[in-house]
């Protein structure tokens, strides 16, 4: 497992990192933990000519709360997220791979990588969160719905660095995270993120459902959300909504899970995640 030759820099500032990326051109790649990139390089499925390692950028490791928004620097590790008390975000982060990966892998890295089988993209989507992206031309905020463009393709462009992740706190929402995999450490075969705001009258004031690994990008189960929004929250209404969870999806099949099976799992897991979120 020997990668192709590459150059490596670990700049001391974000500006230096952006400059290194710009100088490196299209074959330069950002390293923010490396638990996705390095395996791909060892398999020679990725062969960047330059690695720009962000490890020295302390400014990307900050965690703060600002006006109802949780702001996580791109280099905040999954372990920090998992133990940070951020509701569904933490619950999902706690299921990522194993402890060693959670100690090294970062939230910015996983979102910029955009693997639809990884946990964080659909969570961000369900929260309707956003990310900050810096490039030579300045900084822009990109909503979750616009971040994931295709399989392993995100709005983070050439020469840009994802610097921060923003989640609304969503006070008053219950949540449920259901991840189905063969082994504890595996990527999700299918995972479902559910956020439910229960009104005073017991109806569902708001419903958000994120689907992991049900397409080439993370998805919202909008048909199921619409079916439940405004309805009384009970076993029957949840079951009826969950039946719609896989509507319109074309999940990627593999050796262990056919499309039909994944659609079935999405319905079962949505029912379970909603039940937890509504309880």
């Amino acid at each position, binding site marked *: *497992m*020997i990668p*192709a*030759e590459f150059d490596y820099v670990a700049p001391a500032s974000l500006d230096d990192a952006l400059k290194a990326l710009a100088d490196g051109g299209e074959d330069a790649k950002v390293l923010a933990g490396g638990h996705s990139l390095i395996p791909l390089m060892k*398999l*020679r499925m990725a062969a960047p000519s330059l690695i720009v390692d962000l490890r020295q950028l302390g400014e990307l490791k900050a965690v703060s709360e600002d006006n109802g928004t949780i702001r996580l620097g791109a280099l905040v590790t999954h372990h920090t997220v998992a133990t940070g008390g951020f509701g569904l975000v933490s619950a999902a982060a706690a299921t990522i791979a*194993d402890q060693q990966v959670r100690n090294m892998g970062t939230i910015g890295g996983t979102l910029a990588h955009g693997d639809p089988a990884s946990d964080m993209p659909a969570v961000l989507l369900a929260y309707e969160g956003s990310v900050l992206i810096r490039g030579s031309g300045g900084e822009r905020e990109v909503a979750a719905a616009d971040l994931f463009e295709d399989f392993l393709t995100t709005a983070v462009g050439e020469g840009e660095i994802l610097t921060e992740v923003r989640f609304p706190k969503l006070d008053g929402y219950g949540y449920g995270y259901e991840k*189905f995999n*063969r*082994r*504890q*450490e*595996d*990527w999700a*075969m299918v995972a479902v993120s559910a956020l439910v705001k229960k009104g005073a009258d017991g109806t569902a004031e708001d419903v958000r459902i994120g689907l992991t690994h049900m397409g080439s990008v993370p998805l919202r189960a909008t048909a199921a959300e619409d079916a439940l929004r405004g309805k009384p929250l009970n076993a029957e209404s949840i079951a009826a909504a969950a039946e719609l969870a896989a509507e319109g999806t074309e999940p990627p099949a593999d*050796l*262990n*899970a*056919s499309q039909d*099976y994944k659609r*079935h*799992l999405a319905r*079962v897991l949505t029912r379970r995640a909603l039940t937890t979120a509504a309880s």
Partner: protein
Amino acid sequence: MSATAAEPWIGRPLKRKEDPRLIMGRARYIDDINAVGQLWAAFVRSPEAHARIASIDTSEAKAFPGVHAVFTGNDLDLEAPLPMAWVPPGVEVKNPPHWSLAKDEVHHVGDPVALVIGSDRYAVVDAAQLVSVEYDPLPVVVDLEKAYEGGDLVHADLGTNQCHEWSLGGGDLDAGFAAADVVVERRIVNHRTAGAAIEPRGVLADYRAGSLTLTSSTQVPHFLRLFLALQLGISEDRIRAIAPEVGGGFGSKLQIYGEEIALAWASRKLERPIKWVESRTEGMLATHHGRDQIAYTKIGATRDGKITAYHTKILQDLGAYLMLLTPTIPSLGAFVMSGVYDIPAVQTDIVGVFTNKMPTDAIRGAGRPEATHQIELMIDQLADELGMDRLELRRKNFMRPESFPHETAIGVVYDSGDYPKALDTLLELADLDAIKAAAPAGKLRGIGYSTYTEICGLAPSRVTGPSGFGLQTGLWESAMVRVHITGAVTVYTGTSPHGQGLETTMAQIVAQRLGCDPQNVEVIHGDTGTGPQGLGTYGSRSTAVGGESVARATAKIVDKARQIVAHQLEAAVDDVELSGDKFSVKGSPDKGMTIGEISMAAYIPENLPEGMEPGLEELAFYDPENFVFPFGAHGCVVEVDPDTGNVDVVKYAAVDDCGPAINPKIIDGQVHGGIVHAIGQALFERIHYDDEGQLVTSNFADYALPSAADVPSFDLDRTETPSPVNSLGVKGIGEAGTIAASPAITNAVLDALRPLGVTFINMPLGPQRVWEAIQEAKA
């Protein structure tokens, strides 16, 4: 510390002597060993499952900076193709030539076609990508049953995909089935798996001044030396084969690999040391696989549950070539096809079939897990058909404890056993019924049992040798015990342990007999340059055969020690015995000599008996009279989520009998690992090739080994039924858990699914397969 009569060394759960160096990173594996002036090697491997090699252009690779040489199949002027050790009398085994580097045709993805040698590890991998090979694709044969039927051929010049037919039977099968009131037939698939040792393979070949030293992560350094001599035409005395610390093998390193031969050849050619360490992807592609059988089984019984006949036809997927033991694997299972049951007529018919895949060969259990899986599934299926309790049916057909040594219908003599006792002990160990009854709402729980035996302690050479089973080797083992002048002891064993704790087990055997501390008994293994000729570690032989040879060499030391003591203390030899840490005269325990005092006398020979040679060092070769037959009873509870098909193992309890325990802690560890290995196969692990013969499961993300998080804690117990075959009374334990566990898991899943109407299922029991079985039963 010293042993006393009340506290013998044998039977004590000592921590493993070898562990401190392993745990603290002080051990030296092949990746840690380098030679001055060493070059590195990389192999170019076929991306095609079956193709003619139209051309190979190595010019660009040769011109790559740092590259010293690039060799292809026709460059290697070897004396013979890679070895296959089985020539069964009266059976034709078609053996297509298998070279270290393919010559004209590739037969599986990963088949090596070129060898790149250069000055650093990175350059050779880069240069290997520059070797340009033009392939003319040929039809690809993947499906075992279709390959058996005919059609496209893996080796066109053989005219068939069928390699060989081999049968073993005894008793009147027709009469047995005629006497049956009920006959059950099933098609049982035992899918392909990988050994997946944590340490990949690696080789360092160092040819200099006319001699070759080959260091390899192998289970069989002595075989390796022999075959290096035969392949390269180098005299055996000029070859030293070393197995350094080896990080697991599970049978996958019981092999003579083309990489070992090719590196030795190239080292001689270039007169430079050359090293190669496989990547995990290479390991999945080109380290031999295991299992991969389809068995068509048929069992007959009377209405009251007496089994009258058992017939199995097995198709074995051999892969593309025959490696060292490839075609023998299902035959090893045939020796115990009827398991622990007294069945009057038993027949196994095996057909080996070529496909365009990596060859299969021995993986932990080698044929016996498959045989056990088949009979234990069939017992449950038969019980269902008869409407009889599964355990009652087992008890009704167990070989009776008083019938041992028990000759089975096929003429194999089981050495000793008490199957009802093992089952009773299991039922006392865990209340599986109560655990099943405690299923949470919405979940289904089921209980599965497996009452098993296995055949191990390979092997009585007269049974397995050229005129018997047909292996072109003996299967004895050797040991040399050297008591140093201070009384410290060095043991040289011909076995080649690689993680089983044998340094501790063997030290306990010696310490027990010499009255010394096992910490002062060093066990040296895995080096043809230091110890006597040996045969390696596999087939749960290292204690039953290797340990017995240690015991026998030690017995010779004891004989000489007693003579020295008798002479020095002026007593009769017959009156000298070991008591505590001293060889003393019966009736006067104060009067005696420790092994250190005896060895001092032996090496400073001022006062030895007349004519006695000085020194205290003995050699023993031991060829067993029979195999040994460990056995036991395993039971588990699984929980199935009927909505998703997910299976969790909630409880696993096992009672194993490997004779008197030498080190119970090591035995428990072997059982733990063995059970996990089989749970892995039953629920997670699967080597899968697609229709084009591409390996889909080429890394540990896709080839799902279970981790500690995926299996429960185990409840273990033992019974101890001594074997009459060796003086220690011991049987093997390294493979037992793996042999026993897959049917227990599968039977438990079927028990859980019975209320839903699912009556049969084949491994691997991944969630989609279980869910689909539920859907089919509903339909």
